[in-house]
């Protein structure tokens, strides 16, 4: 007797109240990845190797400054004391908060405008055709080029850099969201259609979640760029923040130790922002699209 026959018989004997003819497949796949601890050796390597490179870099930096005999360019320890000085004056926290505040607002506004508009553009040909040329025309204008205009409109205030960051991000976010929507697999749309979803449900339950992973990746890269823009904007348009710190330290007394301290802060915070956004990519509702990248 072949397996199929016995299979059908087994299936028939089952009454509907029972748990079907199929025992739940005994597969441990569900927990794979989630708690598969990385090998201890790999963890150690992941810490030791980069630390080694960093220490070598600091030594090289220190040695190079000593050799050159420069009075202005700081050695690593000078930068550390610079950071301590900033912290004591209360400027460190104040400037970091100021910069983060502007990025957060500019970026959030760009997200609030860009994502819904991108969703609309991606799913409506007419809107796409009407707005795309204008957006493509705005996109290549560097946010730096907008600085004079933003000062004209907003003066020296928080609004200027917020506006610049908004401008720098809103077009790319719109375009990448529209692209994400257009790359949603058509079989999902047909299935949704089949289940009789309303237009709103189609958007909120299928199109948005299906394009979310690609949108989030765009946002992660975009936040990095927003961080670049805020520093540039603060050098000109305001008198606080990390960008201002760098320019101010140079102009008022050639304090290059503080200049480099500002650069270090920018680097570290930018890196932390990226790590934060990578955490977002780990959420179950978007993880499906990233393959095993973060497993």
């Amino acid at each position, binding site marked *: *007797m*072949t*397996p*199929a*026959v016995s*299979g*059908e*018989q*087994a*299936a*028939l004997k*089952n009454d*509907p109240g029972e*748990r*079907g*003819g*199929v*025992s*739940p*497949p005994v*597969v441990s*796949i*569900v927990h*794979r990845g989630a708690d598969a601890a990385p090998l201890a050796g790999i963890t150690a390597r992941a810490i030791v190797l980069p630390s080694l490179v960093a220490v070598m870099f600091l030594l090289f930096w220190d040695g190079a400054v000593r050799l050159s005999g420069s009075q202005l360019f700081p050695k690593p320890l000078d930068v550390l004391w610079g950071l301590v000085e900033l912290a004591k004056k209360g400027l460190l926290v104040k400037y970091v908060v100021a910069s983060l505040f502007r990025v957060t607002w500019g970026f959030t506004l760009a997200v609030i405008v860009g994502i819904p508009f991108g969703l609309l553009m991606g799913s409506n040909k007419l809107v796409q055709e009407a707005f795309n040329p204008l957006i493509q025309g705005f996109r290549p204008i560097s946010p730096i080029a907008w600085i004079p205009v933003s000062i004209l409109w907003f003066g020296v205030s928080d609004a200027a850099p917020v506006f610049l960051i908004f401008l720098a991000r809103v077009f790319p976010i719109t375009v990448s969201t529209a692209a994400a929507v257009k790359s949603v*697999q058509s*079989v*999902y749309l*047909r*299935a949704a*259609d*089949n*289940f*009789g*979803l309303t237009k709103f*449900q189609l958007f909120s*339950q*299928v199109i948005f*979640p*299906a394009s*979310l992973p690609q949108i989030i990746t765009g946002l992660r890269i975009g936040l990095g760029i927003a961080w670049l823009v805020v520093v540039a904007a603060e050098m000109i348009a305001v008198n606080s923040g990390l960008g201002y710190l760098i320019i101010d330290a140079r102009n008022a007394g050639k304090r290059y130790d503080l200049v480099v301290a500002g650069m270090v802060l920018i680097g570290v915070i930018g890196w932390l922002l990226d790590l934060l956004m990578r955490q977002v990519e780990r959420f*179950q*509702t*978007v*993880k*499906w*699209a990233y393959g095993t990248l973060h497993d």
Partner: protein
Amino acid sequence: MIEPPTQSLPTERTGTPAVLVRDVWMDFPHKQGSQATPVLEQINVEIPRGEFVCVVGPSGCGKTTLLNIIAGFLKASRGEVLVEGESVHGPDPRRIVIFQEGSVFPWLTVSANVGFGLNHVSAAERERVIQHYIDMVGLTGFESAYLRQLSGGMRQRVEIARALAANPEVLYMDEPFGALDYFTRFKMRADLVRIWQQEKKTILFVTHDIDEAIQLADRVVVLSSRPSTIRLIMSVPLPRPRDLNSPIYLETRDRILNALGMSLRNGINASCGSHSDASGNC
């Protein structure tokens, strides 16, 4: 050893058929506008309520196209499709398609997928229905798993549970087990027959696997290669559960193969019928 049917076939031939395909023709217009590709020619099928019908045909003959027309995703060049006497003009939750590509949503858990078509019921009822169908397809314990944590067979089970939970009258299935291994396919077929007998749905099931069709169907519709016409519609006179060693089974298979111009005894015939194309596709 011929067992008596444990259950009479649920084909109640009362009045309007569940699905009626009436003189359907389909051409795909060419991009350059020169010549159209004829895919389907003069397709007539009548499916009584509760019947399990399989459509078999060679790859590329137009099975998916036919299913898309019947489900309302594509408009036929000619002819019409009636479901319960009503002309079909688009997809409808009363007729759920299980797509060849697989359409389980990867951003939802198994439970949320199964409950996807249940928007208009109370939360408690929704919970109950979801659990009922998860149990029915044998996914108990995997309620909160995501698609990427499931095997191919389990994904198909989610697909089936999601379709059933929407309580459609008709299920259209497009090679749902095509990507599965031999053993999983056997198991899935047995389970599908059991579910069909419990749920009493009308099922139209597309496959290129003749054995699969005979194991599942009350009737098999055999399509020729492109442009597809119906070569043969035959009932499978085998009681369920089906004895795959019975002479009737083998005879049924022979007749279907013959209709496609093939024979297991002589290998594949040189002539694949009048419509075989130059590439030898048949």
